[in-house]
């Protein structure tokens, strides 16, 4: 286990108390808190380095450009990509929408898009809209009640050579870790592109796009100690030439005339408009912070807390969903008590957990539940916070059961 107390000291957020109690923040799959190092880096980028990257010849603009490109290199290193393959976006949702539209627009009507029932709405509605716009259809790999993809269904549907297979790496509801390498390979064997929603995996484990050999990979800065408003779309180099940009504007062009334009080199081709310099710098600082801890340690710590949490909740009779061996996410229900009521009792103890459908309604349908409670962990959480959650859950069960 990491020394969570020591880590917490880096987070100004945890200086505050809620109802006189220290806040046990267990909703990290939704968003994470930010360490001082990230806030300072962003502040510094505003105070000392604020100019429009790429657009000026003066020293400050050059510095801004360099800071932005250094952040890109940092991200690229972190996921095993080339800097040119890292496209900065607003968040994972933005990244997935871009991927969906690029892919769907690149083929004639009538292709199939393969998704899974496990997807977050980000990797679902994005493709539904793009497929409708460009005249493609969607099919979905079934999820079994144990929270894993159904192997036969997967092989059958992947075998029908869809245009693309886009899937979640780590489920935000169940913590299921899909074998992304195998799934990418399966896609490629069938002549499909592979797109990975890595919003819950990049923050929690070492992810290497070379090893996964995917074509696209999407994640958000705010779920990994970085700021909101910055996300990443990794896009394999070979594809970057093939795709036409979706959006036009400044910096994505080489030459513009009234008759048309030619495109700047990737990744700039896919980054129209003034970039989010401070967001990129903040994300780079978050990566530094995580690398300082070590991604293996982050993963082990969160998995350890999830395992402990499952054990404690099981001990008080909670119903748990998803695989026992998953990422740092625990979904549960207590008797027939509505998750909102459970979350409310937890809130009274200054324990923040999520309740509801977690933006994955088809998955909830597949599991046969309307909603669940979810505790999700990160580097600053510890067992004592899990104990507080368990005691709040018991109290809810006693009052409402």
């Amino acid at each position: 286990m990491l020394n969570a107390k020591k880590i917490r000291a880096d987070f100004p957020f945890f200086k505050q108390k809620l109802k006189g109690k220290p806040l046990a923040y267990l909703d990290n799959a939704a968003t994470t808190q930010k360490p001082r190092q990230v806030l300072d880096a962003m502040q510094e980028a505003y105070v000392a380095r604020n100019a429009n990257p790429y657009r000026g010849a003066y020293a400050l603009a050059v510095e801004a450009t360099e800071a932005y490109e250094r952040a890109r290199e940092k991200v690229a290193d972190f996921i095993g990509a080339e800097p040119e393959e890292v496209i900065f976006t607003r968040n994972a949702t933005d990244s997935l929408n871009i991927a969906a539209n690029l892919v769907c627009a690149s083929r004639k009507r009538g292709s199939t898009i393969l998704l899974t029932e496990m997807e977050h709405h980000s990797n679902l509605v994005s493709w539904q809209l793009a497929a409708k716009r460009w005249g493609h259809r969607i099919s979905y790999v079934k999820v079994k009640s144990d929270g894993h993809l159904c192997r036969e269904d997967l092989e059958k549907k992947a075998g029908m050579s869809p245009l693309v297979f886009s899937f979640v790496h780590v489920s935000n509801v169940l913590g299921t870790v899909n074998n992304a390498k195998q799934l990418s390979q399966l896609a490629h064997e069938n002549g499909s592109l592979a797109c990975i929603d890595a919003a819950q995996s990049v923050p929690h484990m070492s992810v290497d796009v070379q090893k996964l050999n995917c074509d696209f990979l999407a994640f958000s800065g705010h779920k990994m100690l970085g700021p909101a408003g910055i996300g990443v779309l990794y896009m394999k180099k070979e594809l970057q030439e093939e795709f036409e940009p979706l959006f036009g504007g400044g910096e994505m062009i080489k030459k513009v005339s009234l008759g048309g334009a030619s495109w700047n080199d990737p990744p700039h081709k896919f980054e129209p408009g003034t970039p989010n310099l401070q967001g990129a710098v903040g994300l780079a600082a978050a990566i530094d912070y995580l690398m300082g801890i070590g991604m293996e340690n982050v993963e082990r710590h969160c998995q350890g807390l999830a395992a402990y949490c499952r054990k404690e909740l099981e001990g008080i009779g909670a119903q748990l969903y998803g695989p026992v061996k998953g990422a740092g996410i625990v979904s549960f229900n207590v008797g027939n008590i509505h998750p909102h009521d459970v979350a409310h009792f937890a809130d009274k103890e200054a324990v923040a957990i999520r309740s509801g459908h977690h933006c994955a309604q088809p998955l909830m349908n597949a599991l046969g539940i309307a909603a669940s409670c979810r505790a999700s962990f990160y580097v600053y959480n510890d067992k004592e916070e899990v104990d507080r959650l368990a005691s709040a859950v018991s109290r809810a069960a006693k009052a409402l059961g």
Partner: protein
Amino acid sequence: MAAEDIYRENILDHYKHPRNKGKIAQADAEAQDSNPLCGDEISIGIRVENKKIVDLKFDGSACAICIAAASMLTEEVKGKGLEEAKGFSKERLLSLLGIDPGPVRLKCALLPLKVLKLAIYRHLGKNPEKEDGLV
């Protein structure tokens, strides 16, 4: 926080022993709605005679606040005229509940009222979209 203790005695009582819960035989109108945020789902069936709600029942899966609100609301409007029930204000329901549920849970508390009004409009053959302010 407003929601410091919304699980009052009377709310727990209605939650654990909901009045008018179940399915009504031969309903004159039924309606159903859900709260997209949390998945609360409530359906209400009403029986009407001489422009009065002579009987009604609610059903669904929802949080304690929503169940308690449905229980209290159905108890309150049973035997009342359609017009009065149609004009039932959210303030009146909140004062029945006796709590301020706070901005997030307010939707849970008001869902049963919305569903009741949908059922009434359906019975009257009116399009609820065209009526102002369901709740």
